[in-house]
C-alpha cells in the first residue's frame, strides 16, 4: 500500500448538521492533492479529521500508517508525521519567527537550543525569510507570517503537509510569495493536501484534484479534469470560480 493518506467512508456531523457524508479518497507518496469545493462543503473538516483535530463518527482514516479513527491513537506520534498550516497563520504572538520555529523541535524532539536554531535558520532560508528571524509576528506582513507558519511545520520534517486555504487572507502579491514556497515543496517531492480557491494554482501544481460538494467527494481526477468537468455541479463551480 503506497497511499500515505487514505479515507474510507468517513462520516462526521456537528450536532444535526451532516458535514462529511461518506468521504473516501487516497493520496499516494509524493502526490499533491488539491481539495476544492464551495464554502461549507466540508473541505476544512476533512483536513482537520486527517490530523485528528476532529473525531469522526464512522469510517476509517489511515495516515502514514497511523489508524486515525482509532480511539487509542497516539496523537503526538501522528503529528510528528503530519504538518498543517492554517488560513489564519496561528503564529505564537509572543515569540519571534525563529522562536516560533524552534519551539516544537526543542519540546518534542528534544533538540538542543543551538541545533534547533540552526534548523530554524535553514527552514527560514527555504521560505526566503532568513532576514526576519528576530521579528515578532506583528512586525511581519501577512505573506511573511504565512511563510513562517509553513517553515514552522517544515522544521518538524513531516511526511505529509496539509494546507487550509493558506492564501485566502492575502492580497495577490503576498499570495504569489506563498504559492512559490508551496510549488518548491511540491517539486521537492513532499506529499501535500491543499484546500484552495486558487484554481490556476491547483491546475498547475496538483497531481490530483478532489471536488467536494455537500459533504461528499463529487468528482476526483487529475488536474486536467477541471477543463472537462463531468458533473453539473463541478461545471457550475469551475465556471464561477475562475
Amino acid at each position: 500500500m503506497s497511499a500515505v493518506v487514505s479515507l474510507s467512508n468517513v462520516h462526521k456531523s456537528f450536532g444535526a448538521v451532516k458535514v462529511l457524508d461518506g468521504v473516501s479518497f487516497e493520496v499516494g507518496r509524493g502526490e499533491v492533492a488539491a481539495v476544492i469545493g464551495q464554502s461549507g462543503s466540508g473541505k476544512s473538516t476533512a483536513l482537520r479529521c486527517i490530523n485528528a483535530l476532529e473525531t469522526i463518527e464512522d469510517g476509517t482514516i489511515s495516515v502514514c500508517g497511523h489508524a486515525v479513527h482509532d480511539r487509542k491513537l497516539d496523537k503526538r506520534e501522528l503529528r510528528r508525521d503530519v504538518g498543517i498550516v492554517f488560513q489564519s497563520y496561528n503564529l505564537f504572538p509572543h515569540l519571534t519567527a525563529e522562536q516560533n520555529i524552534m519551539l516544537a523541535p526543542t519540546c518534542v524532539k528534544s533538540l538542543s537550543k543551538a541545533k534547533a536554531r540552526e534548523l530554524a535558520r535553514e527552514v527560514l532560508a527555504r521560505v526566503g525569510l532568513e532576514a526576519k528571524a528576530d521579528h515578532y509576528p506583528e512586525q511581519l506582513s501577512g505573506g511573511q507570517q504565512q511563510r513562517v507558519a509553513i517553515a514552522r511545520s517544515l522544521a518538524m520534517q513531516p511526511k505529509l503537509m496539509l494546507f487550509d486555504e493558506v492564501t485566502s487572507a492575502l492580497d495577490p502579491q503576498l499570495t504569489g510569495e506563498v504559492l512559490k514556497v508551496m510549488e518548491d515543496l511540491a517539486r521537492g517531492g513532499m506529499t501535500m493536501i491543499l484546500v484552495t480557491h486558487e484554481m490556476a494554482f491547483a491546475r498547475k501544481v496538483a497531481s490530483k484534484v478532489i471536488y467536494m460538494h455537500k459533504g461528499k467527494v463529487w468528482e476526483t481526477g487529475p488536474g486536467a479534469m477541471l477543463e472537462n468537468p463531468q458533473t453539473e455541479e463541478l461545471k457550475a463551480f469551475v465556471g464561477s470560480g475562475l
Partner: protein
Amino acid sequence: MTYQFDFAVLLPFWREFAMGVWLTLQLSLISTVLGFILGTLCAIGRADGPPWVKFLVATYVEIIRNTPLLVQVFIVYFGIATLGIHVSANLAAVLALVVNVGAYTSEIVRAGLESIHKSQLEAAECLGLSRPQTYWHVIVRPAIERVYPALTSQYVLLMLASSITSQISAEELTAVANRIQSDTFRSFETYIVVGVLYLALSFVVRLAFWLFGLVVFVRRRKLGTAL
C-alpha cells in the same frame, strides 16, 4: 484649629519605621510570589480541570472574594490554632494574604487564559506539543503577559491590605505606627508619615513590577508596547 503639628517628635523612631517598612515589604513579596503561583494553578484548574476541581476553585474564589480580608486573617490565625497548630503571626499573615490574593489572581489570570484564542491551542497541538508544554509555552505565558497590568494593580492593593495583619501582632508598618502614636501621643502626625510611606511603597512596588516586566516580557520591550 488649635492643634500644633510637630513631626520632629517622630524622628527618633526612624529605625522602627524602617523595620515596619521592611516587614511590610517582606510580607508583600512572599505573598505575591506564593499567591501568584496558587492563583495561576487555580486558574488553570478552573479553565481546564475535571469538574470537581472546577467546582472547588469556583467555591474558593467566591468565598474569598465575598468576605473581608480582616475576617479571613482572624479565621486563619485563630482557626489553625484551634486545630492545635501554632504558627507565628507573620506566617499566619502570609498564609491569609496568600489565600486572599490567590483568589483574585486566579480570576485575573483566568481572564487572560480565556483571551487566548483556541486556534493557538490547535496550532501547538498540531506541532505535537504535549499538554503541559502547550500550557506553558502557548497559553500561560502570553496570558500572563496580557493581564500583567491588572496583576500589578492587584499586588499593589495586596501590599496596602497587608496593613490589616497588624491586628494579629505582625509588626508591619501600621502596627509600628500604632505603637509609636501611643508612645508619642502624636497620632495625626504618625498617620500622615505612615500614609506617605505607603504612597512611596506603592510607587516602589509599581516600579519594581515595571522593571520585572521589562526583563521578562522581551517582546514588549522590543516592540515598545507599554506595560
